[in-house]
C-alpha cells in the first residue's frame, strides 16, 4: 500500500466507525455525553457550584478517555463476534492502519462531546492561547493513552461481554478515583498516594492548571508532562507487543 492508500484506509475507517453510527442513530451522541454531563451536574450541585470548572475540565478528560473504552469494546466485538477483523486481515490493509483508523473513528465519535465542554469552558472561563494549546496537548496525549489501553485490553478477551467488566473497572480507576472532577485536596491525605498511581491524575493537574484553577510550578508541570508522556509511551509499547494480526 502506498501512503495515499494508507491515508484513505484510515479516513474511511474513521468515517465508517465514527460518522456513520452517529448518523444512523443520533441518540449515540446523547449517550456519549451522558456520563461526563452527569458527573459535571453532580460535582456542581454537591459543591454548590464551586467545582463547576473542575467538572468541565474533567468532562473533557472523561470524554476523551471514553475513546479507549469504546475502542476496547469495538475491537473485541469486531474481532470475536462479527469477524470483521478477519475480513480486514485478508486484505492489503496493515494492522497499524486498522488500529489507527478505528482509533480515529472513536475520536471522531467523541468530538461532539468535547465540543460541548469547550463551549461551556469558553463561556465560563476563557483561556489564553497558550493554555488552549496545553489543553489540546493533554487531550491528545490522553487520547493516545486511552487508545493504547483500550487496544491492549481488547486483545485479552474472547467474548465481548468480558470487556464490559473491564470497562467499568478502568473507568473507575482512571476517572472516578483520580482527581479528574475535583481537586486532589478533596481526597483524604492517607489515601492520596493511590491517586498518584493513575496517569490521569497528572493529566488532570495540567488541565486544572490550564483552566486557572490551580497553579503549577514549572518543575511540577514538567513532572506531570513527563509522567503522562511516559505512561502513554509505555502503553504504546505494550500495545505494540500485544498486537497480533494473525492468530498463532
Amino acid at each position, binding site marked *: 500500500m502506498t501512503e495515499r492508500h494508507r491515508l484513505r484506509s484510515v479516513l474511511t475507517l474513521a468515517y*465508517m466507525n465514527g460518522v456513520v453510527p452517529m448518523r444512523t442513530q443520533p441518540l449515540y451522541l446523547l449517550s456519549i455525553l451522558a456520563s461526563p454531563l452527569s458527573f459535571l451536574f453532580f460535582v456542581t450541585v454537591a459543591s454548590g457550584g464551586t467545582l463547576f470548572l473542575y467538572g468541565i475540565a474533567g468532562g473533557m478528560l472523561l470524554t476523551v478517555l471514553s475513546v479507549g473504552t469504546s475502542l476496547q469494546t469495538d475491537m473485541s466485538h469486531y474481532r470475536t463476534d462479527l469477524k470483521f477483523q478477519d*475480513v480486514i486481515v485478508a486484505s*492489503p490493509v496493515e494492522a497499524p492502519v486498522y488500529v489507527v483508523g478505528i482509533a480515529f473513528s472513536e475520536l471522531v465519535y467523541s468530538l461532539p462531546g468535547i465540543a460541548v465542554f469547550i463551549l461551556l469552558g469558553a463561556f465560563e472561563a476563557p483561556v489564553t492561547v497558550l493554555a488552549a494549546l496545553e489543553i489540546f496537548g493533554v487531550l491528545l496525549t490522553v487520547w493516545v493513552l486511552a487508545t493504547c489501553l483500550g487496544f491492549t485490553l481488547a486483545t485479552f478477551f474472547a467474548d465481548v461481554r468480558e470487556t464490559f467488566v473491564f470497562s467499568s473497572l478502568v473507568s473507575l480507576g482512571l476517572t472516578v478515583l483520580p482527581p479528574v472532577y475535583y481537586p486532589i485536596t478533596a481526597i483524604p491525605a492517607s489515601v492520596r498516594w493511590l491517586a498518584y498511581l493513575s496517569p490521569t491524575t497528572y493529566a488532570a493537574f495540567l488541565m486544572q492548571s490550564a483552566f486557572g484553577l490551580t497553579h503549577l510550578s514549572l518543575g511540577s508541570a514538567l513532572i506531570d508532562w513527563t509522567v503522562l508522556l511516559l505512561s502513554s509511551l509505555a502503553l504504546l509499547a505494550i500495545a505494540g507487543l500485544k498486537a497480533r494480526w494473525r*492468530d498463532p
Partner: protein
Amino acid sequence: MSNAIEAHGVSKTYTHSGGKTEALAGVDLNIPAGRVYGMIGRNGAGKTTFVRIGATQLALTSGSMTVLGHDVMTETSKVRLRIAAVPQESRPLYFLNVDELVYLYLKIRGAEAHDARQRTDAVLAELGLTSVRKSLVSHLSGGMRRRAMVAMVLASDADVLFLDEPTTGLDPIARREVWTAIRRAIHDGRTVLLTTHYLDEAEALSSRLALLEGGKVRLEGSPTEIRDRVRQPFRLVVSGVLGRAELETFGTVSAVEGGFLVFAKEAPARELAQLALSKGARVSLGPVTLEDIFLQVVGKAIDADDTPLETAA
C-alpha cells in the same frame, strides 16, 4: 494450468488448556488458478483451518502454503494484496447500509472512489441487492446479510477469494444468485476456494473438490473423477415386493424410509431395475451422488466399516 494455492504437508495443531488438537495433519493440495475449488467435510474436519491459513489469518504449525507463488508466512503482505475473504460466521457491521458495506470496504482496501462506486453498483445488481442498497444491514434477513458479505469480496479486485460457507442460511434462489456471481468471478480469471456443507453447491460450482476428514484429505479430484473411483457407481431406491435378502444379491443394501437403497455396479443395477419393474415395485436408478460418497467416506471414518463406495484416493 498454474496453481493459485499450493499446500505441502500443512499441519496445524491448536494448543489449549485441555491439551492439543490436531486440526490439519499433513495436507497436500494444489488448487488450480481460475477455477472454483470446493472443500467439503464435516464440522471440525479442518476446512476452516485450511482457509484461515491461506487467508493469512492463522499461522500453520508445519509445512508450507503459497498463494499465487507467495509464502503465506514469510511473504504475507504480498499475499494480502491479492486476496479477499468471507470468514465463516462473519456478519456485516450492523449500522451500515448495504451500499456502504460494499463501498466502504472497497475504499478501506484502497480503491479509488469512482472505481469503488462502479464495482459496488455492479455487484449489488448482480446479487439482487439493488433494491435494498439503502437498507441497514441490521434490518435484513440473515440470508440477505450473508449475501451482502459475499458482495463485499466479489466487488474487490482480489485475485483469490476465500469463501468459507458463503451461502449458509440463504434460500435456494439467493444461493443460485451467489453461484452466478461466483461463476462470473471465475470468468474474470479469479480463483475461489469455497467451503460448503451443500454438496450440490460444491458439485455445481467446483472444477475440483477435496473431502477433508480428521484433518486429512480423504478424496481429491473433479466430481467426475471422484465418481469414477467408486466401486459401485449406481444407486437404486427400491420400494415394495423385493426383500432385503433378494436385493443383496445385486449389491450393497441399506434401509431407507419407504424401502431400500442399493449401491451396485452397472450390470447388476440394470438387472435389478428390470426385475423390480417386472414385479411391480417402484424403483429409481441413477449415479451415486456426491452426498452418497460423502456419507460413506465420512461414515467409514466414523465406524471404520468397509463401504460399497470405497474409493481409491
